[in-house]
């Protein structure tokens, strides 16, 4: 088949050990041309090692890495043609802003006029036109991150790698930059692999997210799928605020939660130990007899501005903490401590994972 579009990046059964510890265990990942894929996981999950293997800083013990049709497993970093952004910016402190952005262009021996044009173009893309003569030490954290971005895109790489690029910025700036990086990606269309430990950042920016846990990809899917239908208890726990409550399997489409039968939209896995993934925003106050409603006893209630935090017990005393948005329409109906209430869960939201991923 001659016309098959190869994946921009193809990681095939890559394993990496450092001494006795296995950091990556037979990881495979295909990234399509122009796709924005995030490697998400806690520290030690192997996400940075995987990025280092794609960049060429680390060689895998087993497996191979391909860019398009070319195998690059042994290729040194400077011949891989990637743009890269680091957490600590890694800007050259002895160069001006323009010289930093020009570095990859000079390394590629482009003619001086073209370098000048591309530097100006890249700086204007990150809204730093007019900063070209500044020294790195004079810039704020956000500006440094923009220079690092301009440096990574200036030579129009087909592939951009970002290693926690926003984690050194404060929350407000970080959220602003998330949107901006995503807009930049949509405009340039370069294949992007982004590493973060921040699940909201991953949800905001990615086409697909690879959740890593202990050197394996626990789940690879788009943000909605990952959030709504986590592959296992680890993903469910790591993404968003979820309570995981033990339930009993009845059949393919229903489980028993503390004596209440709940019907589930998605097939219930055939396993003995199952957990129901409960997220605050999926729960509704309901009345007895409503579909998929289960009784709870309210223990306490805390006003937190935009929401009320409720601590309740399900059935025979399984604790559950969740929040309900405050609104004048519903505030009056909120149950008080000591009262009984019913919570309902749409069958599509009644999602069950195995306790142990096998």
């Amino acid at each position: 088949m001659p016309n098959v579009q190869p994946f921009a990046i193809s990681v095939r059964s890559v394993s990496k050990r450092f001494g006795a510890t296995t950091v990556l265990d037979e990881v495979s990942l295909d990234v399509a041309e122009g796709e924005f894929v995030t490697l998400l996981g806690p520290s030690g999950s192997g996400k940075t090692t995987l990025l280092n293997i794609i960049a060429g800083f680390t060689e895998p013990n087993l497996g191979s890495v391909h860019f398009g049709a070319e195998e690059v497993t042994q290729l040194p970093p400077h011949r891989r043609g990637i743009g890269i952004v680091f957490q600590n910016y890694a800007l050259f402190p002895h160069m001006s802003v323009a010289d930093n952005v020009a570095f990859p262009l000079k390394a590629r021996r482009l003619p001086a006029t073209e370098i000048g044009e591309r530097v100006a173009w890249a700086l204007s893309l990150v809204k730093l036109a007019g900063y070209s003569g500044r020294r790195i030490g004079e810039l704020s954290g956000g500006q440094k991150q923009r220079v690092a971005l301009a440096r990574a895109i200036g030579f129009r790489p087909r592939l951009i790698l970002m290693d926690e690029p926003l984690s050194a910025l404060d929350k407000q700036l970080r959220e602003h930059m998330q949107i901006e990086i995503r807009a930049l990606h949509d405009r340039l269309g370069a294949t992007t692999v982004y590493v973060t430990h921040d699940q909201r950042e991953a949800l905001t920016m990615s086409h697909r997210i690879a959740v890593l846990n202990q050197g394996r990809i626990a789940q690879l899917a788009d943000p909605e799928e990952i959030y709504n239908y986590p592959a296992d208890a680890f993903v469910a726990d790591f993404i968003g605020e979820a309570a995981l409550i033990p339930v009993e399997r009845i059949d393919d489409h229903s489980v028993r939660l503390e004596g209440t039968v709940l019907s589930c939209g998605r097939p219930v896995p055939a396993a003995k130990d199952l957990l129901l993934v409960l997220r605050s925003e999926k729960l509704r106050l309901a009345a007895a007899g409503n579909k998929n409603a289960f009784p709870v006893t309210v223990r306490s209630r805390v006003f937190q501005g935009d929401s009320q935090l409720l601590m309740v017990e399900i059935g025979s005393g399984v604790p559950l903490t969740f929040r309900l948005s405050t609104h004048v329409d519903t505030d009056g109906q909120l149950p008080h401590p000591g009262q009984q209430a019913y919570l309902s869960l749409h069958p599509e939201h009644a999602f069950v994972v195995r306790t142990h991923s096998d």
Partner: protein
Amino acid sequence: MASEHSAGRQALLLLPGLLFIGLLLLLPLLWLLALSFYDNGLSLAHYARLIDDASYYKSFLLTFEIAGSVTVVAMLIGYPLCYWMLGLSPFWQRVAIICVLIPFWTSLLVRTYAWLVLLQRRGLVNSGLQSLGLIEEPLALMYNATGTSIGMTHILLPFLVLPLFANMQTIDRDLLKAAAALGGSPGFVFWRVFFPLSLPGLTAGALLVFVLSIGYYVTPQLLGGGSTVMIGQLIQRNIELFSSWGAASAVSMVLLLMVMAVFLLMSRYLSLDRVFGAR
């Protein structure tokens, strides 16, 4: 009022240091300065002799030549050494540092005599080269500027290695990773990123070596023989042989001025407080 009070206090805290420097450094220097202008009354005779007597000029020139070559050779040996040490594992890095430090802690005299043993006509170097058939006649390795330069380079090398290595260790490795990933070949990354960032350390080390070389005495005295007379030896001879404190003081003052000139010149191109780590 309170701030004035505390300012007075701070000045008081400075007093011991000021006294120490004033009594033990500035006062003797002023005394030397006074001596250099005294020859049975106020006189410029000592300075006039520096200009008239060609041997002084020759000595100064020789001193700068030796100091310059020692500095250049120390840089050529020290820089690759530091770069190599940087790539070692922490254990071997410590071993290498100890290897640099042990000679540093060994007596100057012992090391100079060791070079005497190595470099003399029938010394280890000459007899080794002869038995290998590389040379017919023994090389004149000592009692000249060559011997002096070899000995001084060895003795002063740690002064270059220590600040340079300390500086290289502070260079962020992520910068080199970024430079490589962005398309820089190893040579390009070295010359555009690593070398410029190591320059403050190299300058600090080279400056130390150069300034120490200018005033060096023991090694040239033992390895240089009678023909290579550096400034330090000039000062000593004026006192020891001619009991002329005035002449010795005048030479010292000129030496001091030259060292200060070197520092001033360097500080025009580099901020010296940054070179010596007082950011």
